[in-house]
């Protein structure tokens, strides 16, 4: 099904772009007049996925991150975040709460947990050596329809 509105953005895996990604998504879905809670949930989930691509996917290399936001009828939004980084060997383990491959440091192992609980749907596709795609969906309580 063709979305009502769509944007794709691609940017370098520099940590300064984490806030850029959040603002870009927030600005795009502003047309649906989301509540502050919905906005905050979505920004947090996006921040987790983008940070993972930067920290885990590309490690200290600079690669491209691809973010797509699609708006469908009735306030359904679909967000995909993709990297061409190292990929995840075992997605099931990676998604467990508190699991992190960087235990010594300052990662809490809660990125996937946040995405899962702040969004309605989460799907992770990854292939070792090729990269990772995270697809999230959320239904917004509709207050105003996307103009057509």
């Amino acid at each position, binding site marked *: 099904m063709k979305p009502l509105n769509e944007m794709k953005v691609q940017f370098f895996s520099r*940590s*300064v772009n*984490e*806030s850029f990604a*959040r603002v870009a998504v927030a600005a795009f879905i502003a047309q649906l007049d989301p509540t*502050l*809670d919905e906005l*905050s949930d979505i*920004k*947090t989930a996006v*921040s*987790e996925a983008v*940070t993972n691509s*930067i*920290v885990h996917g590309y490690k200290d290399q600079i690669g491209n991150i691809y973010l797509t936001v699609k708006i469908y009828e009735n306030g359904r939004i679909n967000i995909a975040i993709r990297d061409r980084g190292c990929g995840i060997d075992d997605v099931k383990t990676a998604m467990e709460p508190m699991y992190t491959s960087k235990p010594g*440091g*300052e*990662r*809490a192992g*809660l*990125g996937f*947990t*946040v995405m899962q*609980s702040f969004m309605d749907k989460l799907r992770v596709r990854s292939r070792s050596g090729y990269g990772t795609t995270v697809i999230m969906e959320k239904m917004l309580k509709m207050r105003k329809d996307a103009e057509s």
Partner: protein
Amino acid sequence: MALKTESDAHILTVFLEGEIDHHIAKSIREEIDMSIERVHPATLALDFGEVTFMDSSGIGLVMGRYREMKQLNGSVTVKNAPASIRKVMRLAGLDKLAHIE
């Protein structure tokens, strides 16, 4: 980063502000750790009153400070966290480690 801090004999209060994500977490961490080193407080109070956004990088930040304060036989208190940030903290079970006011 130049965070406002306040300390008496027992409590070091750090006033966090703006958006806390992975990008900014490192400099916040370094600044807090320098203050802990200097003051050796019994309690580290993190004031989230002016924080507008936080993802799980902020959780890592608090948990890391908790571990440090524990080594000093001290504790961590979280103050004035807005609802959206308390939501992330609850998800992380942070209330089991830090005293959330």
